[in-house]
């Protein structure tokens, strides 16, 4: 078993109204960042867990996303391993 730090990004579906992204976009424009064409706001969730392999750590986390962490109607998610620490033998 190894310990994994997993980073999960949950992002509103493209094309879906994202009023927070829109508000930030306007604020960036008023700061003079006029080359910004779109802003969307999601969230990052960090989960530490134990698993046999990187693959099973990812599979487990994707399962969590489907069941709870993301809403399949409105959000997409992606999962990556941020850190892995092998348990001492």
């Amino acid at each position, binding site marked *: 078993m190894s310990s994994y730090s997993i980073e999960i990004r949950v992002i509103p579906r493209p094309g*879906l109204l994202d*009023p927070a992204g829109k508000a930030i976009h306007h604020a960036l424009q008023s700061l003079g960042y006029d080359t910004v064409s779109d802003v969307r706001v999601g969230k990052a969730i960090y989960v530490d867990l134990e698993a046999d392999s990187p693959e099973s750590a990812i599979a487990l986390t994707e399962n969590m996303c489907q069941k*709870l*962490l993301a809403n399949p*109607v*409105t959000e997409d998610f992606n999962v990556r391993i941020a850190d892995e620490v092998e348990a001492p033998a």
Partner: protein
Amino acid sequence: MKIAVVTFPGSNCDYDLYKAIELAGGAPEFRWHRDTDVGQVDAVMLPGGFSFGDYLRCGAIAHMSPIMSSVVAFAERGGPVVGVCNGFQILCEAGLLPGALLRNDSMKFISQDVFIRVETTETQFTSSYEPRQILRVPVAHAEGNYHADAETISALEGDGRVIFRYVDRDGQTGTGGTPNGSTNDIAGIVNAGGNVLGMMPHPERAVEDVLGSVDGLALFTSLLSQTASAGV
């Protein structure tokens, strides 16, 4: 007629629902979210509020509460289930209703009276209303912008499952009566079986003259007249 009102940590309309059920002549009973059984009741209501602080997404944590598997089983047996505001969000998260409630398009928390139109009286929740009756009821939410994919919306519309729609005081849509950006001005829907209702406006806060409107009361009397004749 017994109606269970489920309280979650952060619910704040549970007593309003309790009182409205009493006023309509029903017998409300509180259930705690950690209970595992709704018990022998004729209907279940999920109140508004901010269950679990709206952490993660509104209703997302509450739908994992121990009582919810019993609520889902009750709904699957055809038992009437009503979710108001946060209760609607919980029903969507639990998969008992399609779609999701997004952030209001204004980005603001909206607390005001709105007008909604009764789109059908052919449900156990609206049978005591007049067809196309216009109701004045309060909303109080930041995430009430109903969203679902095009296929789901057209199924809801085609099957007559949109039962409340935001309108202006004259009953018209498209004139700014929708407070939150909801698709097709949707304020309340039922599931395919017609026994699960979710709505963002608060009928339980419009049941006595002192509250400024009594237009919500008929929702409770509709349900009570059904459960009186059917029994689940």
